[in-house]
């Protein structure tokens, strides 16, 4: 029993020591390396104003009330019932992607951008006009290396430069 315990101690220490010399690191060196996200990743939303039919399904399904339908800033003259278009509030959005899934015209799509920072709350509210310009680009100190994350038998995850 006591001898067994000594071996258990030694085995634990040996296992730890093994990791001292192996190099199986899992860290992704963000922001020097940035994951090249696959299509289908649920990032910030892009919006195509041209194809939008103003059906407002996206606003209706949004669980966080992030999408609202906005009146255009200048209502064209003679328009009795001006069409409303969606704008997004990124302080509320939870990236569930329901709006993208429900949009019948593919006007809403996910981008893979997810790491944008803002200074103020107001900056995060995008009216339809700004929403159509696409999500803001993340700002890195220097251009990051894009890596693809690949499951690996030896190391769990491997990061391969694109």
């Amino acid at each position: 029993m006591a001898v067994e315990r000594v071996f258990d101690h030694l085995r634990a220490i040996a296992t730890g020591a093994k990791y001292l010399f192996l190099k199986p690191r899992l860290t992704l060196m963000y922001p020097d390396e940035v994951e090249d996200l696959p299509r289908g990743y649920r990032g910030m939303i892009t919006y195509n104003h041209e194809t939008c039919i103003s059906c407002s399904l996206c606003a209706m399904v949004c669980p966080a009330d992030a999408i609202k339908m906005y009146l255009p800033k200048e209502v064209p003259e003679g328009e009795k019932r001006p069409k409303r278009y969606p704008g997004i509030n990124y302080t509320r959005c939870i990236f569930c992607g329901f709006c993208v899934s429900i949009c019948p015209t593919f006007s809403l799509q996910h981008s893979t951008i997810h790491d944008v920072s803002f200074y103020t709350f107001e900056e995060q509210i995008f009216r339809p006009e700004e929403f159509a310009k696409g999500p803001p680009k993340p700002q890195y100190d220097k251009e990051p290396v894009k890596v693809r994350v690949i499951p690996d038998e030896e190391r769990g995850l491997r990061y391969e430069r694109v």
Partner: protein
Amino acid sequence: MSEFVETISRSEDGRFLELLIGPQHPASGHMRLVAEVDGDVVVSLRPNLGYVHRSVEKIAEVKKFLQIIPLVERPSLADTTANNLAYVLALERLLGVEPPPRAQYLRTLLAEINRIHSHFYGIGIHGVMIGSSTAFMWAFGDREPLIHLAQELTGARITYSYIIPGGVRRDMPPDFPDKVEKVLRYIERRLEDYDKLYVRNPVVRARLEGVGVLKKEDAIRLGITGPNLRASGVPYDVRKADPYCAYPDIDFNVITREEGDAMARFLVRVGEIRESMKIIRQVLKKMPDGPIFAEKYYKMLPPNLKKYYEETKEVKFPGIFANLRAPAGESVARVEGGRGEVVIYIVSKGGMNPYRFRIVTPSFRNAVLFEHLVRNVRVADIPAIYGSLDYFPPEADR
């Protein structure tokens, strides 16, 4: 030791020190534990719950049915699939839709991936609570490949919102089984190292064996659930007791242990990781072909969306999803999540929101164990027992 404690805990008042552990404490989580200690012995411990109460049930009453999916995921962030699945099962029973078999298998697949990383989460937190930073870092590191898999499947890391009424939101990518197999092999290899460095580490065993023993009768009487129940020798698992999704076709064991101590709870989790890997392999092997979205809703899609779905196997929601109405009635569903049984109960009056919504989470049911187990133990046993319960305050507070 217990005799000794009995005599002093009856001594005059004022000799006990009241320790307020949390919410500003490195290992309390989002709650306060009020511990009365006599020297190094905890006389009583009262958990003070509710610090992260977010009123999920009441919010659900003003949300539309589809919008509740992300909502029920929020309380248990490490184990979102269980809540998602339980809710959708209950909703489907109300709506009277049956998802196609492939969707059932995909649901099972995600649920098991989620179970593994939820268990790793619990193991990691438990590790750091008894002082092993390596167990913490390893477990959280090894969660990552599984989260990556789930991300490939669903598009999100934690909050998948993957399971929707009538099916799932997208099919798995073609090379997915390959990647899963790689990750499973990796986890298998790593579990051996866990065994050597952590499980059989004499210090770990000294800290966990015989600590916080939950007797079988007490576990049943108190309504404990999940791995904590199974560690006391009760072979109860909703996947067997009330099978759902693809579980009836899958061959797996319910892991139990007799000891009922912190070590047993931990080992049940490790055993379940192994079982889940078995399940995932079977699911991938038996995965039937076919649609992933119920015929009933598929028919409602306009032709261009139908075409898109056929091509990409990505489900587009029919317009009706925005304002889904459930017929009047009530339904209940239960699911075995990583931490235990999740029960969801919906009452509908035929409108767009549930009339009453009830969610019983496993942590809520296990919270009673704080008072029950942490009595006449050492101060150092508080985190050892706490961690072994895999208790998640936001899940209990909801």
